[in-house]
């Protein structure tokens, strides 16, 4: 492995991990407040579509982002309406959002753009560009720094760094603020929070709102940074992988971040290892590497790698006593 290879591996790991990180943090906020979020996948897909459609229609990155985040916040509120206000089943509601997302984005895509459900590509001005191409240029040619740091770490667009910054931000919000304390308390023991005079429903809606904002970012990343256009079902299981990462990270933002990086790395490596024999092991089937995140999560859940403790009140609707 030479420097160029290490650099490109780091770069693609970060690129693939970014939507996972954003989505896992979104799921984390909602699940720590006691609301299961199976619908991450669907919300991300909706956001990607909204970003693609708005990006094409208005030609503005800001509008695309706002539309994407607005759509997902509304969906999170729908989830809250069904599960928090009306105590419906959180898993069923999430499944519904996922199925509706697959159908509705394609229906609207066909109706508005008539390209088999795709949106036309958004223009280069709308896409988010590399944040500091100058620095990467300057580092070029210097050993190690040029490839590993320059290409690997500094060549990315703003959304990647936003995702990286959000990890400590969410950690700080959850573990160092009063809001975070209440949010976690709602997920552990809602009765206690209610007794302390804080509205359980309001806390859960607040968590879902933040969840929607982050899902919106995750979905719009797919269109504004990764792929230039929306393609039906383009999330391709990323939402579920983020869910796996957040469980693998034991519902902790920093651990979930490492899990996302690990899963992203496996994804980046899977493509490169196609047909390449590994010393001592031989050829590893790509499907195995791609399935590894799910396999690892199941093994973790089975209690073979430490213990996972989900928030105590996860999935339990709260009925206020009168």
């Amino acid at each position: 492995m030479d420097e160029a290879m290490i650099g490109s591996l780091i770069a693609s790991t970060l690129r693939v991990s970014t939507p996972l990180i954003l989505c896992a943090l979104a799921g984390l906020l909602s699940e720590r407040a006691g609301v299961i979020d199976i619908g991450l996948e669907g919300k991300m897909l909706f956001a990607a579509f909204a970003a693609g459609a708005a990006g094409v229609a208005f030609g503005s990155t800001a509008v695309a982002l706002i539309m994407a985040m607005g759509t997902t916040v509304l969906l999170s509120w729908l989830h809250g309406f069904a599960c928090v206000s009306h105590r419906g089943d959180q898993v069923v509601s999430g499944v519904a959002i996922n199925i509706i997302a697959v159908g509705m984005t394609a229906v609207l895509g066909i109706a508005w753009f008539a390209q088999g459900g795709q949106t036309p590509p958004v223009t280069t001005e709308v896409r988010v560009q590399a944040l500091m191409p100058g620095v990467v240029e300057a580092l070029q040619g210097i050993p190690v720094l040029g490839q590993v740091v320059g290409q690997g770490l500094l060549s990315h667009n703003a959304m990647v760094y936003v995702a990286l910054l959000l990890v400590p931000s969410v950690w700080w919000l959850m573990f160092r603020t009063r809001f975070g304390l209440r949010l976690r308390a709602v997920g552990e023991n809602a009765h206690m929070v209610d007794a302390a005079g804080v509205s359980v429903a309001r806390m859960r809606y607040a968590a879902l709102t933040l969840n929607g904002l982050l899902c919106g970012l995750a979905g719009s990343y797919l269109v504004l940074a990764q792929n230039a256009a929306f393609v039906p079902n383009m999330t391709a299981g990323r939402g579920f992988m983020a869910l796996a990462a957040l469980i693998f990270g034991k519902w902790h933002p920093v651990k979930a971040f490492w899990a996302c990086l690990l899963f992203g790395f496996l994804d980046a490596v899977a493509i490169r290892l196609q047909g390449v024999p590994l010393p001592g092991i031989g050829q590893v089937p790509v499907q195995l590497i791609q399935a590894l995140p799910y396999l690892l999560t199941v093994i973790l859940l089975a209690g073979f790698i430490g213990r996972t403790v989900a928030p105590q009140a996860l999935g339990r609707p709260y009925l206020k006593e009168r």
Partner: protein
Amino acid sequence: MTHQPLPRWADLVVLPIVNLAVALLAAGVMVWLVGQNPLEVITVLVHGAFGTTRGLSYTLYYATTFVFTGLAVAVAFHGGLFNIGGEGQAILGGLGTGLVALWLSATLPAWLMLPLMLLVGALFGMVWAAVPAYLQAYRGSHVVITTIMFNFLASSLLVYLLVNHLKVPGSMAVESAPFADSAKLPSMHTFMGWLGIEWPNSPFNTSVFLAVLAAVAVYFFLWHTRLGYDLRATGSSARAAAYAGINPNHQVMLAMGLSGALAGLVGMNEVAGVNGRLMLEYVSGAGFTGIAVSLMGRSHPFGIVLASILFGALFQGGAEVAFEVRGFSRDMVVMLQGFIVLFSGAMAYVLAPSVAWVVNGLRGNRAPQAVKGAAHG
């Protein structure tokens, strides 16, 4: 579950119909919003699904698969579990059905081959569901999460086996060699031919009898056997059931095992009945449609059969509409399916107070128990 003062008949019949109507209305509004005529769509859809024997055949062919996946979700639900893994279990079921056919179909006669395929398919589905069940019962991991993971593992496994081992060398298509004739379930065209009735050629095959049999068997199992009673008791209150001497862990294994076996039967329709070989996309979302079917059918086999026919009609009719109406695609049906899961599932009781108000109003305001119920709720 419900704290609403709704008479039983209204809870069982009126509320589901109201919820379904809301879902249909939402889809109708979407059809109208994208600039199409909902009435035209529904006319073409109904005609496409039921208007010709050929259309009806396709409708029932789709329905057959949905009965299996719907029953799978329902059995787990009666045991208090939400089996999201029907997709993966159906993939494994088809794999079992197909592998044994590839292995033995050249040597065994049909009367031995087909039951063997059925058994192995059900067994594969059962095992694929039993692992998450075991993890839920004895290792405390949540069955919803593990079955989601197992869906992805199942499709990876299928792709791996097809690409690396089962694919015919030199062929471009990712599919196995065809089975010998003994491993092919007779199509309805052939079967009706034996009876001297003319029936059009379609994927509709004799696995539909298996689906009906499965629905009847699930009904008898749940409501007329001791094991079924234990399972339902655990589902409605695991703790009470445990006091009555029912081991909840065994019930988790039983419910998921049966659920997986039912999902595994999808292989008999898609692999043995239609494809005659192993291919990539033989489940394609039917596991998730099963959730909608089970919710709509209120987890009762009879309701599930009706809901399956409705969904079969939507899929078949939707395909016809996509042909006839410009700009309509089958994604509309997927969206409606999502609306049904939302309104009949997650938001099933949102409208209950309004329905109760109307129902009680129609019964002349004589609802003292309603007031009492509200006070307790």
